[in-house]
């Protein structure tokens, strides 16, 4: 697979380490009253879609960027790759 790195261009997937669902970006507040329930859902309830999936890849043998890669798990087509830091900042800005 080739991953279109937003800064470095197309890179071989073997340079990356896969983590999983980009929903991991939405970490609950550890001090919330119902934190145990929120963390249970955060950690253990994941979607595993056959189709479009947003997932986290780490450019370990590269620039050490975490990326959010939008990928079709059926065809392996990659539709988008963004810096995870940008995605996280945007989400925070949008509340």
């Amino acid at each position, binding site marked *: 697979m080739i991953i279109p790195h937003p800064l470095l261009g197309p890179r071989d997937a073997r340079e990356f380490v896969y983590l999983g669902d980009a929903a991991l970006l939405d970490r609950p507040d550890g001090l919330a009253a119902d934190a145990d329930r929120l*963390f249970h859902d955060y950690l253990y309830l994941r979607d595993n879609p056959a189709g479009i999936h947003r997932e986290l890849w780490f450019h370990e043998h590269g620039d050490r960027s975490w990326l959010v890669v939008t990928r079709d798990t059926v065809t392996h087509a990659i539709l988008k790759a963004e810096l995870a830091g940008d995605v996280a900042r945007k989400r925070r800005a949008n509340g």
Partner: protein
Amino acid sequence: MAEPNRLDGGRIDRASPLTFSFDGKTFAGYRGDTLASALLAANVKLVGRSFKYHRPRGILTAGSEEPNALVGLHRGARHDPNARATTVELHDGLVAVSQNRWPSLAFDVMAVNDVLSRFLTAGFYYKTFMWPKRFWEKFYEPAIRSAAGLGALSGEPDPDRYDTGFLHCDLLVVGGGPAGLAAAMTAARSGARVILADEDFVLGGRLNAETVTLDGEPAAVWLRRALDELHAAHNVRLMPRTSVFGAYDHGVYGALERVADHLAVAPAHLPRQVLWRIRSRRAVLCAGATERPIAFANNDRPGIMLAGAMRAYANRWAVAADRTVAVFTNNDDGHRTASDLLARGVSVAAVIDARPDAHAQGNYELHRGAIVENTRGRKALTSVDVRRADGSRVTVPCGALGVSGGWNPAVALTCHQRGRPSWDASLAAFVPGADLPPGMAVAGAANGSFSTHAALQSGADAASHALAELGFEAPAAALPLAEDAPVRIQAFWHVASGKGRTWLDFQNDVTVKDVGLAVQEGFRSVEHVKRYTTLGMATDQGKLANTGAIAALADLTGRGMGETGTTMFRPPWTPVPIAAFAGRSRGKDFRPARLTPSHDWAAEQGAVFVEAGLWLRAQYFPRPGETHWRQTVDREVRAVRQAVGVCDVTTLGKVDVQGSDAAAFLNMIYCNGFSKLPVSRVRYGLMLREDGMVMDDGTAARLADDHFVVTTTTANAALVYRHMEFVRQCLRSDLDVQLVSTTEAWAQYAVAGPHARALLAGIVDPPFDLGDDAFPYMACAELTVCGGVTARLFRISFSGERAYEIAVPACYGDSLIRVLMQAGAPHGVTPYGTEALGVLRIEKGHPAGNELNGQTSPAHLSMARLVSTKKDSIGAVLSRREGLSEADGLRLVGLEAMDGETALPAGSHLFAPGRPHDPGHDEGWITSAAYSPHLGRSIALAFLARGDSRLGETIEIANPLQGQTLRATVVHPVFIDPEGTRLHG
């Protein structure tokens, strides 16, 4: 040395005669021959034995689809089993042997299987070898495995070198026949970067095997011009001897280039084979087509071959399969073979055409609407029994029979990304489906365009289209005039009449009857029938057999060909040696070795090294007279406890954390608090995974308000850094903090023992004060040593002794270890390795990798109180889950062996004395164990249920692997100096 079947002409180099041997006998051939063509020229018809029944088999094809003519090449360690004689390029001195026969190819004892064949039908081993059950592993399977099978490996290390590499291009053309050449020339003229790969050793594909003309001249004339043009183009890379074996995601193709296999003596600088990963923006598949046989009784005798192969041997290699041949066909292509062989002076005894309306294309006897019912000749064909349209029978004497059941487009690569071919009834063939791998187009025979004209045109068109998509201007090339014969075929798969087995899969010995048996036993899916009968599961992957089997299955289940469908095509197209995938990653180069800056010094001291991940670390430093590693380790441990020792700890992961929010960041990644850590102090940090399990532990030293140095364990350095970047980029991008891994930038040594300060006093530059008031336990500082070398000093201890870790830039690491030894000599300094390090930390009760194995919660380590409730940190919430923190759960304890020196084996399980040793009574296990020179007995760390409330109890230790039961006393995990007086000096 005689070549009774060699004809005139052909595309071999008669000026370069070669000799080779087959089964010890010497033969002659020419440069340009394959092993198969040279054997045929010498009238060698029996070349192999089949897999299961050991039937005599001959050469069936002229390409990589060959199922029968598998031979072993070369002697000794270089022996290469299962080479297809049809693709082995002949070179002088080639040594080949037949396989799967004993004692000889002509007389094979295991041919008795053939007589017993009615007991060995499809699925026989599922049914036969059921009882007694334990016989399967011990007897049946080894016996079956040694009786069946193909060639054997030498069992010695492969002496050849292999390589792997990457190639990039705009257009990859797979296959160098007329379609591929037209595609490559079109692309070459556009300026695009082109790779043309073909598994054959000459380019041209069927143009080399046919008598077709281009622009009225022999095809060879046009071919020469085309290849000259491509050779001259700087943007084209021609890759003969290169099999493109797989189509992978995003335009990546796998290819195996046979660089030196064809050379009698390969130059030392050349690898034998190279595995290429070709990244292409577009690809045109011009892989051609594979002819398929017709099944009839005894259709596997040596001398029976595909009609197209028979024609290729005659035209390209100037070899007649026999001086008298016959042809059995269901399409016009078989007639080409008859007329080409006639033209070369071979006697054509008859053409048997299943079609009632067939037309002769030459002066030979034609049996229309006829079939071959049986054949004769045990080790070589002598005649075929023909049933004519009117029902009469005639025996046709011949030494070879060419069979054509039509051609299968080579669709394999179109299916590597879940595509399925579709059935084209007019061609009686599966053609590429609509669902091609992105960026791929198909042209020529691979796409069902079988005529020379259609191949050239479709190749050029496919390339133009692909290039236009990439923005290249590709002017339409002027294509030569060529034949454009339509496909005239009548689907005909197997002869139902006739006595004897009708073979579908020659390599795995599967017959039409076997498919029938599978259907009778309830198998309907083509995938199930494949696995039950093993059809298509041999090294040829059913290239010849599958279509015929699908037809038999379709017939028996009353479904059409398209509805029955094909099995899934998967890479590789042809076998790829594991060695090629490995490339240079073998032996000591299997993975990189990381060496610490003191490595050379340690080697000079005679250190024994141990692998720690990629690192090589000094395990212990034996001295003359020490006969057992325990003697060495005990000495090293005592030296640390009584004087001073030095250990290279460079391999511990180091992460530099800087930024105004650095402390807040550490508060997030460690479950204990860091915001109040003063500058110039170090703190132990426990890092959790989000699920509450311990990920790693280490220290964080605060060098400045906005600057920390974090250490990780050696094993987890990469994992922890990845995790820290995850937290920084994905969870806390609001923080002003930057990370960089500095593991390899600093050489770091632990200096531990009562005389550690005295040793360091000899190397730190004034005015740095090592006094315990100025630099107490858990202090850190940046300083200079040895007259100006930048250094970092941490007063931290893994051993429980007064200890320091000193770090200098890696380039000074070798010098520093030598200086430390020199400065330490008056204080009795002793270098110690990872083994002593392990003993020291077990004595001190520090958890390490064995304890932090990913299933350990802070509560298990009695560290639950470390997890701060006043802040949010990774893993804190879930670490408090009931199941991980329950009072009766596992707790880390120490064990002291009751009988002194007997080792307590790590991994042993713990039981209350007298209780049964079974899982129901299991109370824990030993994680780390050592002999403690300090205590003079064996000790261990263990996880024990309710361990913290059981100090002083006796526990039984079960080691069933060695039939051992031991007893130990449960103690606090800190065996030495629990008050910490040694630490503080």
